[in-house]
């Protein structure tokens, strides 16, 4: 539990969706390209990602099973920072595709909010919420924080102030490192909403949470922070919904919201189910460990394991460490079928995680990007629309394939001047936690807005 690897691991937020970070980085350049008259698709930043990488760490001959698992997790996290490689999850999430689609829609919604088209944003958010509702385990804390932020801004834009406050508080409860400048591009009202909501979260009541994973080997993250293996606790968390992630190699990862209430402790139990490839992975890992000094056996088994898993590339390493360094030896199977030996000695200092990333980058021939956990949740530049025509054109650039009614000319209320709003915001932070607004409001979501009458004329089928 307290080995150097585990301590280092504690500072590493789980990189669930490497592409999300890439998409955020793309935004810095997005608007200038847009103003230049050429649309650059959102996927442009990820166009270089061309393969998946599975990392398997086998324990050394003497000891170190726990360290091997920890190192495997760290290397998997580091793989998420590579620019041309996506980590192949050995603890996969079911319905991960829903996560991708939802993130795509949230990104579109945030862009729409920049362009002051809240209805378009609401359409995208409805779609995102639907995808996440369909797969409750999809979406990490950053994704939900972005969703809630976008919801808050969309609601703010149409003058629904209290729901906007509630949504933003939920976002800040999940990712508390958000800063005011991340709201600047959305206008002064957004900044004021942030200031009020963040203050409420910081000064509001707190509670404790305890997470227990059956089997005692699964890693536990609370709001993206690694908290332990098997059992984890966190105290003085802001009240509200917190995202718990539990993963173990060969097991289906599980994510869940846990509601923290003021002054109380809550316990959440997890029982992971094996992934479909678990037997193959277990057997393959055992064969690799037992035959690690026989390259021909390792190559054959690595190729087979790669096919069984469905990854494009595979790195198999075995660590040997002392108090100051980790020596890695192993083999790398490339997407082109090449198979070669790899070896590296890595100092265990405060840059250990980066050094692991460098080792991976060097091995697969990629570049190491920033740690997602240290990047802003949603940093954007503002966009200035010169005219209605330009605004419309810019809006169309968001997604040429989808057309929505442009009825976002609704006159906005000057809400920030209303005394009751700020009173409600200040008082509201401690009252949040009554379930996930928008997503878990029951099995039926009544559509707001226009209605019509349906008349059905019944018929019988012509029978023989």
């Amino acid at each position: 539990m307290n080995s150097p690897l585990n301590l280092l691991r504690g500072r590493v937020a789980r990189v669930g969706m490497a592409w999300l970070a890439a998409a955020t980085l793309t935004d810095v350049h997005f608007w200038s390209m847009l103003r230049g008259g050429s649309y650059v698709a959102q996927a442009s930043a990820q166009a270089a990602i061309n393969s998946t990488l599975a990392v398997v760490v086998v324990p050394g001959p003497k000891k170190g099973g726990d360290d091997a698992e920890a190192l495997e997790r760290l290397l998997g996290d580091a793989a998420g920072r590579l620019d041309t490689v996506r980590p192949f999850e050995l603890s996969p999430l079911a319905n991960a595709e829903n996560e991708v689609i939802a993130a795509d829609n949230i990104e579109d919604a945030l862009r729409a909010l920049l362009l002051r088209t809240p209805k378009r944003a609401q359409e995208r958010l409805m779609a995102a919420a639907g995808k996440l509702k369909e797969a409750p385990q999809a979406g990490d804390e950053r994704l939900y924080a972005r969703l809630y932020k976008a919801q808050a801004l969309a609601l703010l834009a149409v003058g629904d102030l209290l729901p906007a406050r509630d949504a933003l508080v939920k976002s800040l409860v999940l990712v508390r490192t958000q800063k005011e400048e991340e709201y600047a591009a959305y206008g002064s009202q957004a900044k004021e909403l942030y200031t009020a909501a963040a203050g409420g979260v910081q000064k509001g009541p707190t509670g404790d949470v305890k997470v227990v994973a059956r089997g005692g080997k699964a890693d536990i993250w609370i709001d993206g922070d690694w908290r332990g293996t098997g059992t984890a606790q966190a105290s003085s968390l802001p009240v509200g919904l917190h995202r718990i992630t539990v993963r173990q190699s060969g097991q289906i990862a599980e994510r869940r919201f846990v509601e923290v209430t003021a002054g109380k402790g809550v316990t959440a139990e997890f029982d992971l189910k094996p992934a479909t490839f678990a037997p193959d992975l277990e057997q393959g890992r055992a064969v690799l460990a037992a035959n690690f000094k026989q390259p021909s056996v390792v190559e054959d088994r690595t190729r087979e394991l790669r096919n069984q898993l469905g990854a494009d590339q595979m790195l198999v390493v075995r660590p040997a460490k002392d108090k100051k360094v980790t020596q890695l030896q192993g083999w790398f199977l490339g997407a082109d079928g090449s198979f070669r030996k790899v070896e590296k000695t890595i100092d265990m200092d405060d840059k250990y995680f980066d050094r692991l990333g460098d080792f991976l980058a060097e091995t697969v021939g990629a570049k190491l990007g920033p740690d997602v956990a240290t990047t802003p949740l949603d940093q954007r530049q503002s966009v200035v629309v010169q005219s209605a025509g330009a605004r419309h054109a810019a809006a169309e650039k968001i997604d040429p394939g989808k057309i929505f009614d442009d009825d976002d000319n609704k006159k906005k209320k000057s809400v920030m001047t209303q005394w009751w709003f700020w009173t409600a915001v200040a008082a509201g932070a401690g009252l949040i936690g009554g379930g996930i607004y928008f997503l878990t409001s029951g099995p039926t979501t009544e559509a707001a807005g226009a209605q019509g009458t349906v008349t059905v004329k019944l018929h019988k089928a012509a029978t023989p």
Partner: protein
Amino acid sequence: MPQYLDFQHSPVLAPLLSGALALGTALGATGCAQDPEPTAELALVGVQVAALATCGGAAGDPLGEIKTLQLKVRENVGGNMQNTLKNAAVASLGAGSDSASFPAIPAGGPREVTLLGVDGAGNAKWYGRRNGVNIKKNETTELHMTMMALDAFTCVGAPQMPNAVFAATASMDAGRVLITGGFGNATANGAVTTLEKPSDSAYIFDTNMGTFEKLPVTMKAARAGHSMIYLPKLNQVLIVGGTTKMSVPTDGPPQWQAADGVGLTYEVFDVATKTFIEGANYGANCRKRVFANLIALTDDYVVAMGGAPWPISSSDDYAKSDRFTSKHSGTEKTGHFEDAGNALQLNAVRAGAAVAYMAPTANGTARYFIWGGATIDQHFCPTTAGPGDCPTPSEILHGEVFVESTEPGTGAMYSDFVLDAGDKSYDTKSSLFFPTLTQVKRTVAEGQPETFTFLVLGGARYDPFASPAVWKAPSLDDAYLLEVREPSDTLHTKRRVTPKRVSGLASGVYMHQSNLSGPAQVLISGGFTAYNAPASFSMQYFDLATQKLLGKDKLAGSGAFIKRGGHSALTLRNDCVLMFGGASQLAAGALSSTQPAVSDVYCPKFLVP
């Protein structure tokens, strides 16, 4: 025959073509009360299964039984996801009434509108659905729905409607279905059973109105084992190939050879005028195919492929595909087949292959996955052959992908994929004919190759390398998910196909059907579990969410299924499945009745939102 072409996951094609392009389906000709079949014709066809009832259930009168109605409205949000907008608006159905109104329904579209009919005991026994409905704001939207039995069979058809094997069906506009042809008789010919007397009759079933109309005109040629595809721009149905005779050995599935009188090219059904139009220039440029695969390209171009004799084909002519163009002069009533030369050539001579729509390419053109049906020509392996002269199992090209190009009516077939090891139970050393192929998943993730998952079920396997060559018994191993991963443009890696066996199939089966029923389940029906034996397979379903083959928990009504094979099954626009025709056994003794066709619709319980 199985459904060889699955368009149900095509966002572009599905609205018009969902199930419409199921090829080689076996349907029976039907009659109607107003226009009964002549007695003489009944005597001639006589393709009825003595043991078969006319349908899987005698459902009551929905208008008499329904006391209240529940309306449920969902919207499509990104593909298959459906968000419930209105859950169970309730209205009473008064005595003698046949309509009900539901106010305050969320406007907009497209919507899925489901209606449940509840009887006096509070049981939801009847079902109706319309997809793609646009509910008008502050107005009344009138819908017509045929109420069908829920988790039970609804008989459809007309009195004295003759049964048929290997007829064809196609969905057309407005929920209508065209049904044509099929064998009407079977006779013993030594140890071989001959299927014969194909029908030239045609019928239209209207899913919304419930009508079942026998057309006053007939096809230009009687045919069975033909294929049909709806052409939305022309509002016509292209009918290709078929045969007038088939031979059923005791140790294999039915087969056809050139000597069986195969001389059928194509004709076109014009929906607006309800007339059949003969193929231009006596069907020039259209090869004579049986159970051909028809795939739709943009602008109503159609590629006809496969349909070779099976399991052996000594000519590579059938590796070539034919191209239908909808372009025609003002004096012509329809399009025509044009000489495509060696373009559009398959990488193998195929017969009874299964084809499923994949997804649009980045250019917006179509992609199709083709699986099975590869024939091996043993004639290339004389007894005097030397090393390397004979085909080997590795030369069986199990599948390929057709990619439409940006030039209208063109494309290419690619077979250079890597067949990963997958499950060892997957048989790579024999040819698979007539499996069903259904796309059950598509994954598009940034940085990862686009991945498709297809459910492949059943089929008849032929081992040309055994001595002597042999048809293998239908196997439980022929139930698997095929994961197809597209190549990466950056790495130039090959397409990769990985089979993973799915457990839970009740038995190996062929001449069955698989249909996507609603967004989340595949309904498997009928088929034969052994050669020269009565049909014994009933119904199962594959659940997309759990990726499992399941049985009775949500198919309680399946016990009433009339067991048969060689039937047709087509997903209707209300997501129920029309099952038509078929025989309890492909043998003369079992095809001697003159009962009406077995024809029914099954609406699974899992369709209820």
